[in-house]
């Protein structure tokens, strides 16, 4: 995490430093963790748990939610929805040491709460810049709160743009960078990406996008040479790379991409679920992203690819595949037991992933993958876990769990 803070501060100056300096190595600020999804390593969580062992606490959850927890310091933030039509939108803050509920706030959905039964209105994972929580929902309501639960601003993007809804529900999670929160709201009937000022909620920019239902999430991609942070917008027709502050289109790729599994960054390479997995890089000139390699046997189903220690991990159906992110060459594969909606995370040389039945697989990573343990949680799990130093936070249908060897 130190590189995140140091580089960002160097690039963006004191003002931004005030914003991000509260994010630390143990923080987990958004869907799949740190920007770009290429996580810094932290201490490994326990490699087995259950029957009271290595479960630091559990907290009961009301209503529904498939969003992931995010973490700032000693606080965990989680969204959920309640009500017969999931019209109540909740943001809950927990004490990471005890699981105690510190505060809870709620809002009324201003957009559609219609969803496929498997998902729910609390599908997108919130994001944070260290000071503010950006809670986003399938209804396209975006609430910005401070760490004490005081609302700073509230936008209703379907209230503003009524055709921006999918009857099956939406799921794209926001990202925050350069004082801008970026959301993708992409349906058959209206589709746009938007950058909003973190302070005021004002629209910095809005880009019309391909009108096709889309559930994947934007990612932040740090350009190598300048450390400039860019945002990747993925959809069925391909990928756009834009400047977060202005929405200026830097480069694009028009050969299609997944509408569910999101991209990952590996240094100067962007790994896109497109025709299997396709590695792209920014062009020296022009606006077309250059294809570096393509591997059609690396085809993520629902999970997003994970970049960890010079490897990329993809789950196709029930098969975990490890590949070289520089070439796309598959190094090994390992059969797990799916189906998986939750994306994998990795720390301390282990990969953690939960199937929909709630079984947590721990895989030792190395020249070959090896299943170390299978840990049944006995509850449906669709959410991606959050990594903390030496632990995991995982949300099941009914509970938030902290998997850790000792109280932290």
């Amino acid at each position, binding site marked *: 995490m130190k590189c995140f803070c140091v580089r960002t501060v160097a690039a963006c100056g004191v003002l931004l430093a005030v914003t991000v300096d509260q994010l630390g190595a143990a923080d987990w600020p958004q869907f799949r963790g740190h920007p770009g999804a290429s996580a810094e390593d932290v201490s490994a969580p326990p490699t087995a748990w259950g029957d009271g062992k290595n479960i630091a606490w559990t907290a009961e959850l009301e209503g529904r939610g498939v969003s992931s927890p995010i973490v700032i310091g000693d606080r965990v933030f989680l969204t959920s929805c309640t009500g017969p039509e999931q019209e109540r939108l909740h943001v809950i803050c927990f004490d990471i040491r005890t699981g105690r509920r510190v505060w809870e*706030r709620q*809002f009324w959905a201003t957009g559609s709460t*219609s969803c496929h039964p498997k998902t729910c209105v609390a599908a997108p994972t919130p994001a944070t810049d260290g000071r503010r929580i950006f809670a986003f929902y399938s209804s396209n309501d975006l609430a910005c709160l401070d760490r004490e*639960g005081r*609302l700073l601003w509230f936008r*209703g993007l379907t209230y503003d743009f009524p055709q921006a809804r999918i*009857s099956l529900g939406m799921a794209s999670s926001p990202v925050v960078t350069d004082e801008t929160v970026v959301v993708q709201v992409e349906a058959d009937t209206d589709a746009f990406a938007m950058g909003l000022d973190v302070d*005021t*909620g004002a629209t910095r920019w809005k880009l019309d996008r391909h009108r096709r239902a889309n559930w994947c999430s934007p990612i932040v991609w740090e350009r190598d040479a300048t450390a400039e942070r860019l945002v990747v917008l993925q959809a069925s027709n391909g990928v756009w790379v834009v400047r977060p502050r202005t929405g200026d289109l830097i480069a694009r790729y028009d050969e299609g991409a997944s509408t569910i599994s999101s991209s990952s960054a590996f240094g100067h390479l962007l790994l896109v679920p497109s025709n299997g997995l396709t590695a792209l890089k920014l062009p020296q000139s022009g606006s077309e992203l250059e294809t570096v390699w393509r591997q059609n046997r690396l085809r993520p189903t629902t999970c997003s690819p994970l970049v960890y220690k010079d490897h990329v991990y993809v789950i196709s159906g029930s098969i975990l595949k490890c590949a070289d992110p520089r070439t796309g060459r598959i190094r090994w594969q390992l059969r797990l037991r799916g189906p998986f909606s939750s994306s994998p995370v990795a720390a301390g040389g282990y990969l953690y992933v939960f199937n929909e039945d709630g079984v947590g697989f721990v895989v030792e990573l190395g020249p070959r993958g090896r299943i170390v343990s299978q840990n049944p949680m006995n509850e449906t799990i669709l959410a991606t876990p959050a990594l903390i130093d030496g632990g995991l936070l995982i949300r099941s249908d009914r509970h938030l769990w902290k998997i850790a060897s000792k109280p932290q």
Partner: protein
Amino acid sequence: MRYHQTFVLLLSSIVVSSLTVGTGLPTRASSRDASIGKWIDAIRAVGHQGAGHEAAQKALQNLHRCGPDALVPILKGIRGANPLAANWLLNAFEVIADREVRGGRGLPADELERFLLDRDNAPRARRIAFEWLAKVDPSVIDRLIPGMLLDPSPEFRRDAVARLMADADRLRGQDQLDRAVALYRKALTGATDQKQVEALVKRLKELGQKVDLQRHFGFIVDWQIIGPFDNTDRKGFAAVYPPEKEVNLRASYPGKLGPVRWVPIHTDDPYGIVNIAKSVAPYKGAVMYLTAEFVSRESRPVEFRLGTPNAVKVWLNGKLLFAREEYHRGMFLDQFRVPAQLQAGRNRILIKLCQNEQTEPWAQRYEFQFRVCDPSGLAVLSAERDGAASSP
């Protein structure tokens, strides 16, 4: 009274707050009330696309610092507020209420109860008042919920229905079947939540009772239909075919496959689903129009609630109310809610339903359901409907 018991704390809270907001000077109660009103007004002025945020942010910061005297004014401010402003005000309420409760100072219970019992206040705000009251005084649940079976708030009704169902289940367990049926029937009068209605219908059926779900929900089940018109390449959604210019039930027009004319169509589906693919034909690349008359005894606001996996437009008395070009993303009860204003007398509802040309098995549904209800979900029936006065 809890409010009076905490008067000293409130007073000190007010003074402290006064020192930190507005002019920074202690103020009298009336000027403070005016300040609270001014801040609420500033928040109520937020609008589309971030309009009014700057003033609202300052106002919200001020409200966050207020004491419990601001709680009921904030809730009252939700009535008539747009949905965005309502959420800003809700947070102001929760931050103050949470601080008071955690600080052991309680809430102005009598004022909140008076507020929630006044059905002129915003239903959702009343519900919030109730939930916070119940946190400090759980007895309000047993005291108030039984009287809320026909409340304008669906959330109150849902709780009242659940209690009646539980009571009826107990009677049924004691073999007091007639009394159980009466309670299930009573519960049904306030039920609009689909799961509750289904549970009630199941129980009543087990006891040999019939329930007219079409009437209960207010589905329109008799329509006139015409088509198909052309929707090749989905161009028909924007095309204006003759039924959009006039609804003449005796007219005939050229359609996609030849001349077409209006014919009646009826559905027996309990949830009012009109299945065009089965009842008419599994057209692809097609536009069908359906129309029905709805007689209202008075001019009144209602909601049209519809569900369909097809692209759809809805007109009322020649005015386009709703349009959505989405295909095969599911169909749910009350999937789309369309506010409408009925005129006294006859109202003409016109629906345009478009089917695309997708070939996947999951993309063959061509159907819709349509009901008329009040904003809380209770059925509104056409005055012409046979036996409109009888219960479901």
